């Protein structure tokens, strides 16, 4: 019987099965940041186990609050710095070279098809965009990862999403993932790998695939995952060209990390996205999703463009196209945090930073900043932010604040209008209905599907084929 990509990766990394259904897998990379790692370091020190399994496979960054905002965050940075030095961790990105973890690590070529990656951060699922299994873990799992280079997971059950059609102009990966989460719910993929396939994904850049996989966790997913293809090879080429003679060779080698045609899935869900509209969230859960059109005119105080979801160069380019030659409304304030120094400097060279600044945006250094409400744009009680981030939980960007998640295009258009609005992007106009009903009724319905509107998609039950 065929295997999914996640099953293939597990099989090739299996270290032990101490109990039925429990897979201890070897890790190719352990990523660390200054919020969850210091506690792990302190515990390892207290246990007399201050060691690392392989200093070349540990990558560390200070990104959540940087520069430090107070004594406590300064202390967290110091613990990381001292630890990286003590263990000769060469890939440690300190201030001046640091950026948001899930943007900077892929940019440095640290994630490859077939890799296993963990990090003490729930959005580690982002790295599945490269055909890797990448999962967020807590401090204890991180600790064991640092110490022994292993992590335990249950069988990687998978939901396959087949994204058909062609995205209309002005509709992006962010709209796609918000739509999917809206359909399956925040608990819709709990304990599941979310495999994203189909023509829409094939056409996406690596940046867009990262946006897609980044929010898998918001549906409860263990990892997002896309198949490696020529787009993946092109992105990674400067890091891998010593290993392969041609790009075709690389593609061939990576193609072993593609699901078999007869692989077994928990569910297969198909969407036709040809008529998808720009989407946004409205409540305190990422599955409370509406079209931007339905929310047109809603009040906003702040616009935030940045984060591991949408702070990449592609996102900045899209937003700057809309902001070019315009000013943001004086009813709102705008904050841009390019996700990495490289993105920042490319944006400078391309004149993007200038566009943002002339439009009236405050441009900050690369950091998570406002995304988790710890610095650089915290909301006051009762304020609302139009944000390109990934989480709209109550209080996330500041106590009593409300966050609407959306694409960089919608955020930029909203900044100019001073209220929620759709970006006017020339080209095929998005139509009223979010998706077209094209799929046949599922041959075999899943027992309980979290998807509310079965008419809009096709679901195949256990064992369903491509």
């Amino acid at each position, binding site marked *: 019987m065929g295997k999914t990509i996640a099953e293939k990766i597990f099989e090739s990394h299996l270290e032990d099965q101490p*109990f039925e259904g429990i897979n201890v897998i070897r890790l190719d990379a352990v990523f660390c940041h200054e919020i969850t790692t210091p506690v792990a370091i302190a515990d390892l020190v207290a246990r007399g186990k201050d060691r690392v399994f392989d200093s070349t496979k540990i990558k560390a960054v200070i990104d959540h609050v940087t520069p430090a905002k107070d004594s406590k965050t300064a202390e967290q940075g110091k613990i990381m710095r001292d630890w990286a030095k003590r263990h000769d961790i060469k890939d440690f990105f300190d201030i001046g070279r640091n950026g948001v973890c899930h943007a900077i690590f892929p940019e440095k070529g640290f994630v490859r098809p077939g890799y296993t990656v963990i990090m003490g951060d729930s959005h580690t699922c982002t790295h599945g965009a490269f055909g890797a299994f990448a999962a967020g873990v807590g401090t204890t799992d991180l600790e064991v990862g640092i110490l022994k280079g292993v992590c335990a997971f249950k069988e990687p059950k998978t939901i396959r999403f087949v994204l058909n059609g062609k995205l209309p102009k002005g509709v992006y990966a962010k709209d796609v993932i918000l739509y999917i989460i809206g359909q399956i719910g925040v608990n819709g993929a709990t304990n599941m790998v979310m495999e994203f396939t189909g023509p829409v994904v094939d056409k996406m850049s690596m940046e867009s695939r990262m946006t897609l996989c980044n929010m898998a966790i918001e549906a409860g997913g263990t990892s997002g995952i896309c198949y490696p293809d020529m787009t993946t090879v092109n992105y990674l080429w400067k890091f891998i060209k010593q290993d392969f003679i041609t790009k075709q060779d690389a593609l061939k080698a990576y193609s072993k990390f593609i699901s078999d045609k007869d692989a077994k899935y928990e569910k297969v869900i198909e969407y036709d996205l040809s008529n998808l509209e720009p989407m946004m969230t409205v409540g305190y859960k990422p599955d409370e999703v509406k079209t931007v059109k339905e929310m047109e005119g809603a009040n906003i105080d702040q616009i935030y463009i940045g984060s591991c979801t949408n702070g990449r160069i592609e996102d900045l380019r899209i937003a700057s196209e809309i902001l070019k030659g315009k000013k943001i409304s004086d009813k709102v304030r705008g904050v841009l945090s390019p996700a990495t120094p490289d993105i920042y400097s490319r944006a400078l060279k391309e004149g993007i930073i200038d566009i943002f600044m002339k439009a009236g945006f405050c441009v900050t250094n690369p950091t998570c900043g406002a995304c988790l409400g710890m610095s650089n744009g915290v909301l006051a009680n009762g304020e609302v932010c139009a944000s390109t981030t990934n989480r709209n939980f109550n209080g996330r960007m500041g106590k009593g604040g409300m966050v609407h998640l959306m694409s960089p295009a919608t955020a930029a258009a909203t900044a100019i209008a001073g209220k929620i609005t759709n970006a006017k992007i020339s080209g095929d106009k998005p139509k009223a209905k979010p998706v077209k009903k094209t799929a046949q009724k599922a041959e075999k319905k899943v027992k309980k599907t979290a998807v509310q509107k079965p008419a809009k998609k096709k679901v195949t039950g256990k064992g369903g084929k491509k």
Partner: protein
Amino acid sequence: MKNFSGKVLFLDRSDINTDEIIPAKYLTEITKEALKPYLLEDLKLDTFNPEKDIEGKAVVITRENFGCGSSREHAPWALEVNDINAVFAANFARIYRQNMYNCGMLAMELPENTINEIFSKFASKDTEAKVDISSSTLTLESGDIKETYNFNLAGFDRSLIESGGWVDYADKKY
């Protein structure tokens, strides 16, 4: 092994996330103890007041997808330092669930209809829970109502609870 029995705190909502369990602004704390006053600070529920309702509780019973969102192990720790070591729910977010067992705490799924039954029978009353790990049973008692429910504590989870966590186990074995 930790204590898993005592008074029950009912949280009558699904999808309670880790930001609600412990807000991000407290993640700069390096000790678990420092989290104690902030448990569930941002949880808005008509039937819940963090200042009054947490004190003296040992067990949480809630609905679906408890602990969704961020990977922060601070969420189980915030419960642990308040002497709450067991949570029963219809299901848990994966990372949160693993964090609980990695800390030697109990995160146990009960069928949705059992959770519904428990809420309708006990949620409005002062309820005492007895959790027996060896027989895998949860006994709830309030006045003259008493019910016992079985649960399924599988191999790996049980071994983490009994050995007190994943670090020593893994360091010895791998």
